[in-house]
């Protein structure tokens, strides 16, 4: 009997804790200056007349930090949870994401705890050495309020 591969060991409903990130004013402004220079992502003053009321992070910043946390902790955590002992899993590019939601603003000093729950997995219909693992990902702030969610999809080698 052959040892199960990493892909085979992954099970739906596995909840992977990705760690947390505290958003500082400097990084919020730096990201927004490059990619999303709307007034409410640049200063408290600029946010005062918006429905946000004070400086908050670009949604793409919140999402990009999810990606970073996923890279830093996601695979290691899945290896730990499955007990997988083989070579490092090989990932491929993601085809996309669905249902991104920014339910609540991320303000300066907020600590967002990220997680990812596996939902389904399937093998690629044509390229049989590749498979896709779907997840529901979440970001929750220090008050337990959901600030970010999405349905993600990771491509990986199945062998």
């Amino acid at each position, binding site marked *: 009997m052959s040892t199960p591969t990493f892909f085979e060991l992954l099970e739906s409903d596995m909840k992977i804790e990705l760690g947390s990130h505290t958003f500082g004013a400097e990084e919020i402004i730096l990201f927004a200056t490059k990619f999303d220079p709307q007034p409410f992502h640049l200063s408290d003053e600029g946010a005062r007349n*918006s429905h*946000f009321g004070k400086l908050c992070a670009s949604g793409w910043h919140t999402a990009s930090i999810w990606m970073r946390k996923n890279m830093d902790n996601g695979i290691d955590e899945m290896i730990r949870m499955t007990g997988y002992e083989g070579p490092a899993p090989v990932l491929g590019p993601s085809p996309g994401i669905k249902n991104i939601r920014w339910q609540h603003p991320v303000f300066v000093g907020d600590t967002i705890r990220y997680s990812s729950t596996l939902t389904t997995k399937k093998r690629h219909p044509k390229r049989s050495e590749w498979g896709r693992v779907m997840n529901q990902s979440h970001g929750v702030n220090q008050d337990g309020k959901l600030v970010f969610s999405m349905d993600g999809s990771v491509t990986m080698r199945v062998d």
Partner: protein
Amino acid sequence: MLSYDDFPIGRSFKLGPHLITAEEIIEFAQEFDPQPFHLDGNSEQAKQVGGLIASGWHTCSIFMRMLCDAYILDSASQGSAGLEDVRWLKPVRPADTLSGSATVISRRVSKSNPRLGLVGFDYTLENQHGETVMKIAGMGMIDTLSSKGEQQ
């Protein structure tokens, strides 16, 4: 300043162009998405996908900047509550020139917060070969208080 009234169904805004460099692909990846095919064109993983490719989150972030420059910064934008569908259809590579469009496909005033106009868009980005690299379906929020018809 564009108000909610300036986003009728069918109106389309041009996005870009933006020339993407290897340096910015690597810089973004180092900070947010340090996978080998986003960091090093000579890595084994990059060879599998034809060389260095940009993080999808980087493409999204560049797209956001294009939206800001095309109309958002000149509008009563109140951000976005989310996007239905983001598809990364083709890899984005160094020296690609990205351009695209944002087309209004729906509009309504929020029931829970009448200050917010919800404008649905189809967004698309293509490269210099005319290949679509990313498609997004989503919704932006525009302040209705600034609309001409509702000013006191």
